[in-house]
């Protein structure tokens, strides 16, 4: 893959600075949802390096032109490794969503309640699952506009989410939680 133009991240997970909390606390590796991002651990390190520059990328096959999600090291269509990194649109529209009120995994309990959803990226045939940042009561609506948002984990790694950028319209809204605060 052509990733020479992308700087590498620092590699292994540094120790978190003091007590970490929120979604990015660093539990033991086998309870840590966030991937090892460095070039010593993954051939997809350029994806995470790009996140550090505020860019949203994935791979595309130079042989058959297929666009992948998530990024890959081998094209699933032609089984070749001749892939290139390309930028993805940062704007998207909510296709479906829900608000998680109870039952969060470790490290996400403090996030409750939180929204997740499937979002259609503008102009490319990709519908991705993501955390959706923004108000949860009332929550977003199908059709709401969202924008890619990279963020830092306390230990130096990077991750991403989408954030609602328009005012909720109420159009096509599924029934919202009647009192989500009761489930905090």
């Amino acid at each position, binding site marked *: 893959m052509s990733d020479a133009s992308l700087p590498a991240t620092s590699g292994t997970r540094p120790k978190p600075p003091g007590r970490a909390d929120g979604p990015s606390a660093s539990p033991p590796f086998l309870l840590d949802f966030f991937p090892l991002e460095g070039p010593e651990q993954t051939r997809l390190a350029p994806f995470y390096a790009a996140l550090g520059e505020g860019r949203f990328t994935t791979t595309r096959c130079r042989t058959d032109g297929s666009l992948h999600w998530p990024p890959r090291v081998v094209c699933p269509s032609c089984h070749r490794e001749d892939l290139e990194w390309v930028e993805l649109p940062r704007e998207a529209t909510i296709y479906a969503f*829900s*608000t*998680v009120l109870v039952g969060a995994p470790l490290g996400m309990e403090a996030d409750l309640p939180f929204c997740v959803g*499937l979002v259609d990226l503008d102009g490319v045939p990709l519908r991705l*699952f993501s*955390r959706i940042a923004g108000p949860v009561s009332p929550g977003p609506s199908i059709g709401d506009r969202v924008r890619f948002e990279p963020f830092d984990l306390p230990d130096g790694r990077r991750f991403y989410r989408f954030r609602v950028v328009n005012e909720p319209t109420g159009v096509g809204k599924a*029934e919202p939680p009647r009192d989500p605060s009761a489930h905090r």
Partner: protein
Amino acid sequence: MNGRRVALVGGATTKFGIRAASWPELVQEAGAALFAAVPGLDSDRVDSLFVGAAEPERFAFQSHVAPLAAEQMGLKPFRILQRTELACASGQSAIRSAYAAIASGLSDVAVCVGVEKMNLPSMAEANTSMACVMDRPWDGAHGATAPPFFAMVAQRHMREYGTTEEMMAAVSEKNHRFANTNPTAQFHEKTFSREKLLRLPWVAPPLRLGDCSSMTDGAAAVVLVAEELAPEFTDTPVWIRGTGQYSDFHNLAHAGSLTEWTGLRRAAQEALRSARLTIDDVDFAELHDCFTISEIIEYEALGLCPAGQGGSFVLDGQADIGGKLVVNPRGGLLGCGHPLGATGIAQAVEVVQQMTHRVPAARQVPRPGVALVHNLSGSANVHSVMVYSREAAA
């Protein structure tokens, strides 16, 4: 199907629920229940053991569970010993593997045991394990567990077809009502009216607590034998007639339509084709009601009603005794609980008990000749189907 015919000659389940029992203890209980249910079963004749277990590394901090399970059950397999893992369909995978082994001649007498110990002191750890069923670094890391995924499925089904909370509650009410006749069910002796279900707290809107199956501890076991050995075990064998499976994605980006489960349609078509039967031949079904919306979409994918009409189908009583097809007389995952590895085997136990008329009258299917059993796993990205019948294939 090619190969030898395969008979299911008996089975049993432990009590399902929040159990004061560890993973190996649940396997011991399943073994005791199995040997009690199949008096002709001799440990020395069990040549193979298939262990359906989804996440013992997570829930019980234990790998290499197949020999552990064999020892718990007092078995010393001498042909095939293996664990099958397919998340929520791990139990059915054990049965399918044993079926293939016997049909091919590799095994003559195989035990399948399914087990899961899901209730831990920290539910957050259990939820962490469940999120690893998804594509962990890309979907799980955002908070993808089963409830929000199936909530999105329900949201789309409501939007596209007008499905209502009341329709989803009708699934839960039916399955809990059946579970009330099943002493091994987690929610035995618990009553859930539709009105009560619609007042339960939200988990992930539009799903409430009563729309979601539980984190459950439990185990179940069955014995499969080659056709010529069946008379040594029972006068009323149940025959495995066909099987089918389909998977076309894992990452949620490739889920396509959330409301049209073509994978189930294809898996069921293959299972029925291999059984040389049609859906009209099926007398009852055990479907994977991990969430109420799942069962509604499963009616549609199986062709029991048109797309989008699954909610009306259940509301009209068509999935009940006296309706078009009895669905989940055992009590379903909603009523029995869902110990991942045990569920597919507990469904097979229900098939045996229905076909030998050993269930209470309130859930006895009138003419239980042919049964279809379905498990989905993960985000409905894998569908697994078995067809059983009282009569052997010609």
